[in-house]
């Protein structure tokens, strides 16, 4: 993994590298992972050329190991992402991205008449179809596709 593209971003000693994120959702992935206030080093690269994605993004997070739950959250936006756990500059573990069965308090319901958009309530969606992605609002039963999905 020492291609020229990789060298544009400094490597990290310990932490997590998320690769193959569609470029346009890279910042959303950062939001999901709550990285705005993060104190350690984060490197973000956008618009790298990718055969499968067109343009991809990479996020390298120093000193933080993502949990499976966090990885699952990423899957909503970047179903083809790869997540590598780095230890002492080497890939220690690859975590497979897979959709969870339910999504708690990450996604906003697209139905303006849903109670979750009118009262302070945690949202909950059940995945009813993985490909193409379809989620069902636990409260108002609205079905949303990936285009309707917006994050809280």
């Amino acid at each position, binding site marked *: 993994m020492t291609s020229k593209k990789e060298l544009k971003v400094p490597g990290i000693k310990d932490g997590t590298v998320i690769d193959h994120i569609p470029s346009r959702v890279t910042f959303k992935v950062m939001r999901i992972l709550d990285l705005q206030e993060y104190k350690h080093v984060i490197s973000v690269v956008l618009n790298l050329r990718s055969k499968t994605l067109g343009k991809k993004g990479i996020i390298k997070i120093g000193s933080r190991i993502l949990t499976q739950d966090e990885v699952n959250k990423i899957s909503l936006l970047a179903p083809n992402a790869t997540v590598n756990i780095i230890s002492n500059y080497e890939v220690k573990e690859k975590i497979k991205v897979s959709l969870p069965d339910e999504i708690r308090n990450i996604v906003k*319901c697209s*139905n303006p*008449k*849903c*109670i*979750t958009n*009118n*009262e*302070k*309530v945690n949202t909950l969606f059940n995945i009813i179809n993985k490909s193409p992605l*379809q989620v069902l*609002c*636990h*409260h*108002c*039963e*609205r*079905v949303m596709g990936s285009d309707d999905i917006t994050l809280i």
Partner: protein
Amino acid sequence: MDNITFKGRDIISIRDFSKKELLYILSIAKKIEKNPNNELLKHSLASLLFYEPSTRTRLSFASAIKRLGGNTIGFARGEVSSLKKGETLWDTIKMAEQYSDVIIIRHPLEGAARLAAEAAEIPVINAGDGANQHPTQTLLDLYTIQKEKGKLENLNIGFLGDLKYGRTVHSLAIALSHFNSKMFFISPNALKMPKHYIDELKQKKIKFTEVQNLSKVSKQLDVLYVTRIQKERFPDPLEYEKYKNAYQLDKSLLNESKKNLAIMHPLPRVGEINPELDDTPNAIYFKQAGNGIPIRQALLALILGKIK
């Protein structure tokens, strides 16, 4: 019946019930209708929280409870002082559960009943949440079909009118998908069944047809479920004007249908069924409204643990 317990359960969406459970509720309604026990809900108190106008549903619930010896407290829209003071639904429910044994809620926002059920320790019945669900209506519709036709399986059911916004149609179609119905969706193009319901029926391998003209399919129907074009659900009043008179059924329908066609309607009707049909044996919409009583009694008795 084995493995079915309703005590303490919420009645929020028709999707929460298996075929076996639906049939069980209908069988209890039948028993109660035959032998009403006016002490069954004695000492039971229901909160009727109606945040949205409703005549039939509210009266039907109140009647169902009181005829079995129970009582009600609550409010209807216009008297909701806590709302004016800005109290959240969550807080109102936490209060109501201290005062009563069961909460019956109608609310204009979709998902409100589900949220109420999350807030309350006591059972909650959804009496309509916006354009989403109205499960007791669906159960009384099933009960009516079963009573009139002697069965639920293998019937040809037509749905006519506003299939886009009509929640009664959506829920009934989902419920009937357990019973191998053949469905006929009759509506103007702009008011067709929403795509995700159509996808769901396809997934369940339900046979259905979508047409605009009733006469194309009327001869095949055992049941015709008519709905009102609902002014209040249209975002644009001009659109409503375009479609409000799309269907106006009268006695001529009976010349081109099966002799025992059952005409249903969740009511209120506006102009879609001419009153000249009311006296025909085919018109069962007022009986249908009456069937709300045994169904709601059965549900209340079951979730309050008065019947097992």
